[in-house]
């Protein structure tokens, strides 16, 4: 009872409070006509909206449970029900969240900086989701995840410069490059026990970085590559002076040119990418493949005895994770317009790994929260920049000691309940 009460409080008060605290720096200050305006009441609106939303979602969930037949599984009934049904309380909550995120850049008082920051957070969410497949689900410790991020970024940048590949074709191209690299690295290594993988991936990431630095003629060396094509929207460019054959967005819409337009567009692209990946992974986790990955993580020997091809499963996890990093790299290159090896150091691998560990191994919602914390906090606490790593370390130690499952521990899905449309009951 005490536990249930605690989780209820956390849901209604705890999470909204945390999100409000994170968001309040952006909401408190607004650029007015004559300088900064201080709006002390803005965070309270957000808090009220979040608490209200949570209460509504809980009420809908209760209603749904009360309305649905909660009797135990009986006879052949399972057959007629969809095995992956979702409660509509959950569905409405998800939709509201998506709408809020889509509307974020257009809300009054949200300027360039918060949108840019949100874009950074979403890049790390994408990276974290990819790495959570490798580390959280398949249980492979990858210390060189940034290598695939770099390959995706350079892959798109070079293909764009050599063949004029556009951003939208660059996304699958980068994913493919990263996946092929993962195949080549993984094939000899994944046959071995997991510990070797950590060493090899660490070395691979360093190799990639050193090649990028030293292969001057192709990668531009430490100076990096510039002039990478920005994303366009069906031939509509977001630059002031578009290339031949392209229309400029501001002319097309008949408004004044502003770089804010491009920043919002980039935010919407990464939001779309992250949303799609998040949804796809949610499904994947329930599929036989996702289950098999977790089985291999839990006990390789038992998995083999049940006929699972462990090497192939690991390779698949490694490649899927790498291709997501490739996609993130492609977006990163297109967003910056300039890339250099400096962006792909070991520190990046550690940061993404910290996102995954802090969020709770394998927990998707945890990855989102941890990415927010780890990217936003250093921004907010710029004065404490020197102590950033110290704080990271302390946070990870705290998580390991107090919440070994991570900030958000993903509960096992109750498949039978899901099959009968009884989801959401565990919350009560």
């Amino acid at each position: 009872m005490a536990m249930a009460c605690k989780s209820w409080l956390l849901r209604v008060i705890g999470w909204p409070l945390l999100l409000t605290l994170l968001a309040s720096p952006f909401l408190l200050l607004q650029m007015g006509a004559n300088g900064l305006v201080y709006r002390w009441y803005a965070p309270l609106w957000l808090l009220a909206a979040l608490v209200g939303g949570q209460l509504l979602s809980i009420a809908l969930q209760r209603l749904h449970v009360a309305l649905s037949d909660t009797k135990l599984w009986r006879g052949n009934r399972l057959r007629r029900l969809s095995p992956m049904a979702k409660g509509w309380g959950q569905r409405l909550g998800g939709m509201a969240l998506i709408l809020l995120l889509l509307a974020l850049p257009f809300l009054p008082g949200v300027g360039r900086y918060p949108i840019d920051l949100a874009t950074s957070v979403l890049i790390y969410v994408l990276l974290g989701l990819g790495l959570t497949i490798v580390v959280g689900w398949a249980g492979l410790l990858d210390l060189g995840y940034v290598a695939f991020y770099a390959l995706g970024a350079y892959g798109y940048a070079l293909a764009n410069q050599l063949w004029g590949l556009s951003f939208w074709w660059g996304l699958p191209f980068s994913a493919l490059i990263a996946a092929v690299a993962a195949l080549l690295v993984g094939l000899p290594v994944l046959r071995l026990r997991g510990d070797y993988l950590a060493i090899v991936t660490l070395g691979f990431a360093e190799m990639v970085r050193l090649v990028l630095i030293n292969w001057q003629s192709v990668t531009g060396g430490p100076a990096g590559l510039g002039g990478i094509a920005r994303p366009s929207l069906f031939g509509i460019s977001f630059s002031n002076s578009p290339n031949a054959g392209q229309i400029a967005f501001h002319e097309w819409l008949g408004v004044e040119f502003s770089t804010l337009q491009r920043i919002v567009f980039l935010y919407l692209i990464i939001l779309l990418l992250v949303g799609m990946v998040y949804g796809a992974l949610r499904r994947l986790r329930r599929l036989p493949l996702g289950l098999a990955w977790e089985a291999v993580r839990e006990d390789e020997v038992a998995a083999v005895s049940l006929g699972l091809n462990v090497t192939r499963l690991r390779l698949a996890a490694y490649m899927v994770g790498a291709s997501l990093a490739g996609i993130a790299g492609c977006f990163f290159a297109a967003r910056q317009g300039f890339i250099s090896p400096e962006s792909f150091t070991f520190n990046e691998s550690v940061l993404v790994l910290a996102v995954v560990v802090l969020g709770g191994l394998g927990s998707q919602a945890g990855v989102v929260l941890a990415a927010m914390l780890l990217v936003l906090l250093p921004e907010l606490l710029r004065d404490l920049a020197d102590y950033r790593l110290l704080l990271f370390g302390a946070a990870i130690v705290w998580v390991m000691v107090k919440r070994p499952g991570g900030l958000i521990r993903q509960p096992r899905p109750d498949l039978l309940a899901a099959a009968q449309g009884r989801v959401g009951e565990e919350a009560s």
Partner: protein
Amino acid sequence: MSLVDCPAVQAVTAAAPLLRVEHLTMRFGGLVAVNDLSLSAAAGQITAVIGPNGAGKTTLFNCLTGFYRPSAGQLWLQRDGQPIPLHRLHRHQFAARAGIARTFQNIRLFGQLSVLENVLVGLHRPLMRASLGCVAGMLRLKSFRRAYADGLMTAVQLLEEVDLLADAARPAEELSYGAQRRLEIARALATNPRLLCLDEPAAGLNPSEGKALASYLRALPTRRQLGILLIEHDMGLVMGISDQVIVLDHGQKIAEGTPAAVQQNPAVIKAYLGEAV
């Protein structure tokens, strides 16, 4: 060549044993764990392998289930009238191609997965095939949803048989020791095996759990048309449910026969109790 030797005739008669081990030898460096061992196990029967510690029982099991590659000898499993050479299969093909499933002496469950998910992993191959390399699964095509619901039904039935349905949503690591042993058997059965290898299934069970296990195992071979190969130290269980008992000592077979015959065998008594003084 007599008619009985003809492979085609052998295949249709019950005379062809489910499992044939021929001159199996397993060496670890200088140690010979199994030495020129030949034995067979019949379908629809429980064959027990007993022997003192270090007799080579678990080594035999590990060869049969693909965890070791035999140093010498051949292993054949009869499936659908075809003998399958086990000694040529890759590790993960033992469950799929030959239909051999096993449990482990020290329980090996997927601890953080739920009880139901543990059994679903046993159904990996049919479910994976239905999901068409995840395409049908990601799109939630009707064919996959139906196959998935069928898989859930199979898993539910298996859990009901071992009396674990009420715990379906709990993580496997939370189960009691006896329940974990039962779950391991259910998970192995989910692969729909022809030969089920049980490595000390009664170890650590209390007497009433042991009794329940005995009656469950006794009924399994006929109900599911499979053979059981059983390693067990609990002689009460072995003698109570086995159709045939094979006794190993120092990697060699020293006796074979019905439980009653084996119990009277002087070589067996000597192996277990030592030479009379």
